[in-house]
């Protein structure tokens, strides 16, 4: 078998590729080296290592934290569908054009302004302590329930703005084409505008969901024992901060695969539907 000799261009490109790989490898190892060498040289590194990087505390707390984290995942899982539906309704209402819907539009605008204008934690306190205070019977007085409601209401406002930007980002000519085919306003929205709008906003949407995933921990401040509170309990019990580090690791275990998967899905969709890409 004969091997085709490489052309001058191929040789040049191969050299370029090798050069980039070399630069990347060199710069990465330099940074890792600096971190590994310099940080232990800090004056109180020994103390910090003892209270934040204690292997024994880590392995002891980890299963408890993982167990407590199930509650975070539960709150997240039941909140997301409500957030997405409510946010879509608000976004669609804000983008409606009929003059008859003006009152609804005004309510939608007021809603997003008010919910986004107040810190999430404050809403959790106000709704999570306020509504159960009305004296309803179980299960309607659960802080877990009303804490989740507070999360849903605030996050729906943020996500609604994301959806609205997506809907605005679909060019008017798409709507014109849909309407010219005889599709109704709602059909145009459902089949033409929203599918494009949602594809456009998946990255910012995921950004909001990753935030939500972290803000779920705020619900612990009105009672439920989820991972952050469990980490706090362990910290106090053993006078060691390592449980917080373990909690951080657990959060990352969930959020990093989540974001990587989204990027992968987006890339696959882009390759499927688009033409050639500039380099």
């Amino acid at each position: 078998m004969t091997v085709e000799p490489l052309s001058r261009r191929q040789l040049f490109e191969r050299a370029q590729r090798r050069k980039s790989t070399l630069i990347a490898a060199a710069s990465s190892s330099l940074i890792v080296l600096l971190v590994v060498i310099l940080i232990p040289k800090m004056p109180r590194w020994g103390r910090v290592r003892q209270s934040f990087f204690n292997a024994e505390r880590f392995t002891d707390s980890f299963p408890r934290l993982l167990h407590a984290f199930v509650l975070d995942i539960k709150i997240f899982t039941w909140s997301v569908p409500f957030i997405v539906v409510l946010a879509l309704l608000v976004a669609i209402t804000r983008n409606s054009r009929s003059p008859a819907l003006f009152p609804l539009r005004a309510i939608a605008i007021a809603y997003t302004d008010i919910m986004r204008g107040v810190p999430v934690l404050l809403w959790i306190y106000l709704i999570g302590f306020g509504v159960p205070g009305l004296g309803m019977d179980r299960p309607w007085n659960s802080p877990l329930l009303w804490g989740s409601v507070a999360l849903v209401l605030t996050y729906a406002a943020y996500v609604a703005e994301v959806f609205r930007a997506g809907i605005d980002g679909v060019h008017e000519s798409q709507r014109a084409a849909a309407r010219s085919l005889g599709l109704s306003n709602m059909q145009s929205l459902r089949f033409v505008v929203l599918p494009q709008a949602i594809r456009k906003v998946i990255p910012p949407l995921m950004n909001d969901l990753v935030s939500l995933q972290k803000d779920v921990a705020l619900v612990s401040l009105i009672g439920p024992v989820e991972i952050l509170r469990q980490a706090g309990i362990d910290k106090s019990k053993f006078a060691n901060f390592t449980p917080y580090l373990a909690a951080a690791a657990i959060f990352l275990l969930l959020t990093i695969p989540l974001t990587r998967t989204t990027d992968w899905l987006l890339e696959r969709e882009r390759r499927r539907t688009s033409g050639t890409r500039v380099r």
Partner: protein
Amino acid sequence: MTTPKISLRNISKRFGTVTVLDGVSLDISSGSVVSIVGPSGSGKSTLLRCINLLEHIDDGELLLDGNDVSIPGFDPNIVRRRIGMVFQSYNLFPHMSVSDNITLALRRVLGLSRVAAQDRARELLARFSLSDKELSFPDQMSGGQQQRAAIARAVAMEPEVLLLDEITSALDPELVGEVLDVVRELRTVGMTIVLATHEMAFARDSSDLVCVLDQGRIIESGTPSQIFGAPQQERTQQFLQRVINSGRL
């Protein structure tokens, strides 16, 4: 005399203080090809959009088969089902394959089954030499292919009238021909066509009526030989002279 397919009676359209259409009247008989020509900004696109009720008409009447469809409260979807439109920048739905672009309205508006809609789509794609593009996405096709697919999408609805809004303006010169061939073919099967165009040669050779629009008014209309051979209005002469000077006729 037979009722025209479409009658425009004194149609006016304003955007804020700008008058885009200023009392346009025009009869379009069934099976005819009407070319609307005129300088940029003369209101050609707006006129077509008004016929499809994509724009609200400020004044005047729009009759379809003698019935006023411009009265307030009239369901525009009924009109749009009967009048198809093709746009300058194709406006295909980028998130759908060509086949889905064509079948969407067939299924959701006309209520065809998926299979029946796909059959009709295949038939049209074959007719417009796009059979191999059925499952392609718009971004994967050339401009000429996209525009032929957009025409297929409009024709699939079996409209009584087809509005073509400068459908070759965004195309490279060598792709214009393949799209105009499709329009010629539609003409031979008796489709009523109204086109806004800068393709003067096409307007001259392939239309039954040519209307010259200037500043929102039809300043002159007639057969191609009248308009291109012996234009009466000075502004028509000036317009044609500019077109000839720029090498487009």
